[in-house]
C-alpha cells in the first residue's frame, strides 16, 4: 500500500490554499474571480475535512464535504444569476462601480 503523507502536510497545504483564496477575494474587483477565490477556499476546507476523516477513521468528514459541495453548487448558481442581473441593469460588474447602497 502506498504511504499517505502526514496530516500536517495536508493541513499546511489546506491553509496555503485558503490564504490564496482569501487574498484573491480581497484584491480582485471582478466578481467572477472573487467567486473563483471562494471556490478555492471551500476546496481547501474540504481537503482538511477529508484528511481528518482519513486519519481519525471517521466517515462523517466525507459526508460534510458532500454537503459543502452541494452548498457550493447552490451558491454559485444564485451568485452568478445575481451577477448577470446586475450586468443587465448597469452594464458593468466591477464591484467598485456597484455602489447604489453606499451611505
Amino acid at each position, binding site marked *: 500500500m*502506498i504511504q*499517505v503523507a*502526514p*496530516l500536517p*502536510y*495536508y*493541513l*499546511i*497545504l489546506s*491553509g*496555503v*490554499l*485558503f*490564504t*490564496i*483564496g*482569501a*487574498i*484573491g477575494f*480581497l*484584491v*480582485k*474587483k*471582478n466578481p*467572477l*474571480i472573487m*467567486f*473563483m*477565490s471562494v*471556490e*478555492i477556499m471551500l*476546496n481547501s476546507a*474540504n481537503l482538511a475535512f*477529508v484528511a481528518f476523516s*482519513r*486519519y481519525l*477513521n471517521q*466517515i*462523517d468528514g*466525507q*459526508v460534510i464535504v*458532500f454537503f459543502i*459541495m*452541494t*452548498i457550493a*453548487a*447552490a*451558491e*454559485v*448558481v*444564485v451568485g*452568478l*444569476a445575481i*451577477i*448577470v*442581473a446586475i450586468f443587465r441593469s448597469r452594464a458593468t*460588474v*466591477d464591484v*467598485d*462601480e456597484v455602489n447604489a447602497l453606499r451611505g
Partner: protein
Amino acid sequence: MIGLIFFAIVAVVAIAAAAAVVMLRNPVHCALSLVATLGCVALLFLSLSAEFLAAVQVLVYAGAIMVLFLFVITLLNPLRPETPDRLRNQGVVAGLLALVLLFELWLVIQSGVLAAVPATPPPVADVGNVEALGQALYSAWSVPFEMTSVLLLTAIVGAVVLGRRQTP
C-alpha cells in the same frame, strides 16, 4: 516515499494553479487554472482513499460548476481594464492579513493539538468507500441530506427568478 513525492508534486501544482487564478488578468485563463486546482484536490482525495468524493469533485466542480462559470464569462465578456482601487493600499492590507492567517495556522500546528491524531492513518476498512459513505448519509445524516434537496430546489427557483427578464 512514493506517497510523499506524489503529495509534493500535486501540492506544488495546486498552489501554482491557485496563485494563477488570483494573478492572471483574463477571466477565462483564471477559470482554466481553477480547473487545474480542483483536479489536484481530486487527486489528493484519491490519495486519502475518498474515491467517491474524488469522482464527485471532477463531475460537479470541474464539470458542472466550471461550465457555468465559463458560460457567464462568455455572456458578460468582462475584458476591461481594472479601475483604480477605491480603497488605497488594498493589496498591502490583503498581504498583511494573509501573513496573519498563515501565522495562526503555524501556531495551531505547533501547539500540539494534533498529538491526539495518530501519526499514521488506520488501515482502510474492507467496506468500500461508496458503501460506507452511503451508510452514513442515509442513516445518521438522513435529515440533513433531505434538507439539501430543499436547498437545491430553492437555488433553482432563485436562479430562475433572478435570470428572468423583467417584464412590466
